[in-house]
């Protein structure tokens, strides 16, 4: 068993590793992360997770619900630390897993992965208390500076694989698979389907697609292998030359970012131009990506958080259209139901910290995006202009389909499964 595997086992038991090992781990992680672009490309299938906030036992519950690393490919959208009691254990475990299985887990930066915020919201204090000095906090902050700012999920399927208990249960094949239209599925922590929704895509097709080149079919006649390639290259991959050429899946890509959009960023490529290796600034594109929130407004608005912006459905639609995205997945906001789709499903908030701060009483969720295997697992190509019509932005471009989404909803880990001495969380109230 390697040192790294030993560290993983130890951290899984919620026991910290020695400071010298943390230093080594952070050094290795930085070497790894420095090679990643600001926007990491991730192939589906992938399980997307939102805020963790040091709720270690709930992170373990998340792995139980979503499958273990490396069996499941994970993408965590930041805010690993602060607020909860076990920021160190949670972040160091994720970091160990990243170093051990770099292709099976992606970590991007949240607004709490910052020196300033962690001194206010608990991570700094936790480091001092558990290690007796600020060294470990400094090592971690240096890693924070190298975390990617976003990720792009490519090759997600518009259809869902049969659902069932997440881990290697092949017995459940009886779910009705007449689901060419099935798009969203909600599962509770036992893997039972508690809800599913259809979103037929034809509604705007007939009137909006005067352009005859828009030959893409509505989704309910999809899934025929060999169908005409539909969309253009994945955003940025062509122009930026970051490898892979101009490739596209049958669905649009999914942009994952902790907060949201920025008025300074109109293409995914512009994210790639940011010099990210620094403390999160108070303003500017990098700050906005980590701090902004979608809101029911038109255009841009001031954020009550004092950093980032609010952005409306029109902004999301334009951005998704321009970048061939079918979905923006983000975290950052507590959602009592664990996830929340907005703007006709153009953006979703995924929240993965159940009973946040041991006080909020919310459930959590993770989002599973399946792999598109309808083209034999290969990606399709096309030129860059296909399907762009008349310079008019249609609000629902039929060419880009949404990926099938499976939300696994879960609750906080039961107190008695924590196997911990009775260090009961104490939530503050106004008394």
């Amino acid at each position, binding site marked *: 068993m390697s040192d790294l595997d030993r560290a993983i086992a130890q951290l899984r038991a919620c026991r910290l590793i020695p400071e010298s090992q943390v230093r080594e781990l952070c050094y290795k992680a930085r070497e790894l992360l420095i090679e990643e672009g600001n926007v990491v490309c991730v192939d589906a299938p992938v399980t997307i997770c939102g805020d963790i906030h040091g709720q270690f036992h709930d992170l373990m519950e998340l792995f139980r619900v979503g499958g273990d690393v490396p069996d499941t490919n994970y993408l965590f959208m930041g805010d690993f630390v602060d607020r909860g009691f076990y920021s160190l254990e949670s972040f160091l475990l994720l970091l160990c897993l990243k170093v051990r299985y770099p292709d099976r887990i992606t970590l991007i930066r949240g607004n709490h992965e910052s020196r300033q915020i962690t001194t206010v919201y608990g991570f700094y204090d936790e480091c001092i208390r558990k290690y007796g000095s600020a060294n470990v906090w400094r090592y971690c902050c240096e890693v924070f500076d190298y975390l990617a700012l976003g990720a792009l999920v490519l090759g997600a399927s518009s259809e869902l694989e049969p659902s069932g208990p997440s881990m290697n249960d092949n017995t459940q094949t009886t779910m009705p698979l007449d689901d060419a239209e099935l798009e969203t599925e909600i599962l509770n922590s036992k893997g039972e389907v508690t809800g599913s929704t259809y979103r037929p895509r034809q509604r705007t097709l007939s009137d909006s697609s005067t352009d005859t080149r828009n030959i893409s079919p509505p989704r309910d006649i999809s899934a025929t292998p060999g169908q005409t390639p539909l969309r253009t290259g994945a955003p940025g991959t062509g122009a930026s030359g970051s490898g892979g050429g101009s490739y596209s899946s049958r669905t649009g890509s999914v942009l994952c970012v902790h907060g949201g959009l920025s008025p300074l960023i109109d293409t995914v490529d512009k994210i790639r131009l940011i010099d990210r290796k620094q403390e999160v600034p108070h303003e500017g594109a990098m700050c906005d990506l980590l701090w902004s929130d979608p809101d029911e407004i038109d255009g841009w608005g001031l954020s*009550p958080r*004092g950093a980032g912006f609010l952005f409306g459905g029109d902004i999301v639609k334009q951005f998704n259209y321009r970048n061939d995205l079918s979905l923006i997945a983000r975290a950052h906001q*507590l959602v009592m139901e664990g996830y929340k789709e907005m703007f006709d499903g153009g953006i979703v908030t995924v929240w993965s910290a159940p*009973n946040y701060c*041991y*006080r909020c009483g*919310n459930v959590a969720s993770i989002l599973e995006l399946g792999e598109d295997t309808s083209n034999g697992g290969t990606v399709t190509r096309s030129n860059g202009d296909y399907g762009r019509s008349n310079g008019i932005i249609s609000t629902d471009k039929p060419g880009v389909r949404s990926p099938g989404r499976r939300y696994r909803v879960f609750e906080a880990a039961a107190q008695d499964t924590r196997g911990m001495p009775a260090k009961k969380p104490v939530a503050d*109230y106004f*008394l």
Partner: protein
Amino acid sequence: MSASQIPNLNTLRRGGGRGRLRGRGGITGGYPGEGQGPRGTASRDRVVQGTDNDASVSRLSAVSLGYLEDPFAKTLTPPGLETRRLPIINRGTYVRTTAIDRLVARFLSHAPHERKQIISLGAGTDTRAFRIFSSQSSPNLIYHEIDFAVNTTAKIKFIRSTPLLQRALGIGRPEDVTVSDAGDALHSAVYHLHPLDLRCLKGASTSDTADPQPLLREVDRTLPTLLISECCLIYLSPSEATDVVSYFTRTLFPDAQVAGVSGRTGTTGSGVPLGLILYEPIRPDDAFGRTMVSNLAARGIQLQTLHQYASLKAQRERLLGHGFSGGQAAADVDFLWERWVTEEEKERVAGLEMLDEMEEWRLLAQHYCIAWGWRAGGGFDGWNELEGQSGD
């Protein structure tokens, strides 16, 4: 929520320790056996008495960070408890304090030369009396605070050892003030501390002939009077809480035409002008509320009237039922932040600390309310213009 709470089991009884102000020891005071004794009334009482530490620590945190101006906060917080609270708690403390201040100021500024009276229930280490008496427009006011003897004793010790507090009350000379032999009661010209279990204040309404007052000497039954319960009555049982308010509305300050008829309304009170401010948690039945109830129960804290007065509407009806027919209004802390705080002030407060947790703030703030009601017939006209929140 602070990670620094983990190893310090002492925080189990008084909430969080965190931030730059941490590291002063953090272990003082408290009550022997707190939280460990039998779940009897006495043990529960100690837990409730301990909640005052939460409030004073929160107040000092908000003051230290510039949310509130209060030179007395430090002198009335037990040493060693100084702790930086989370931004949402600081903001909540700010909204609660300034909103009640505003209601109090409106009461005091009505007919400013007329003598008035404030009676604060379960006042603990509250600083409001000192802040009012030391303000430039030192009002013509008598201020009473009622609390368990253990809390009044502690407060009297603070006052005795702190010239700043004595100056605020104008009790610089020994002859200005009387302290009981037990050291738990204090009486001066304008300020009174009554060591009293509020649950004693009952039954008097059925024996109107008896002298109802020996429990609260120096309370002037002829003055326009404001009652304040900041997170106090909610710890009593529903019937006890009703009895306490009735003791004031029907026994000490009877509204002539209403007396004896429970819940009657619509009379033009000919009694003394009387108003009541309540500050309490509400909405226990949603996911946040259920978690709050169970978290507090784990600390031995029971909010006994929470389900009885679970909504803004229930709070307004409660006030009406107690004969506050001049008006009843209520608003949650989220509403008060949005509507009572000016944009300029919001900007100032928002600039003090990065408040990242907007959703959590709204959740928390929507589960606390201020309710205020007053008798018809003058004295509280200033409250008419203050905006309450409609609906539940």
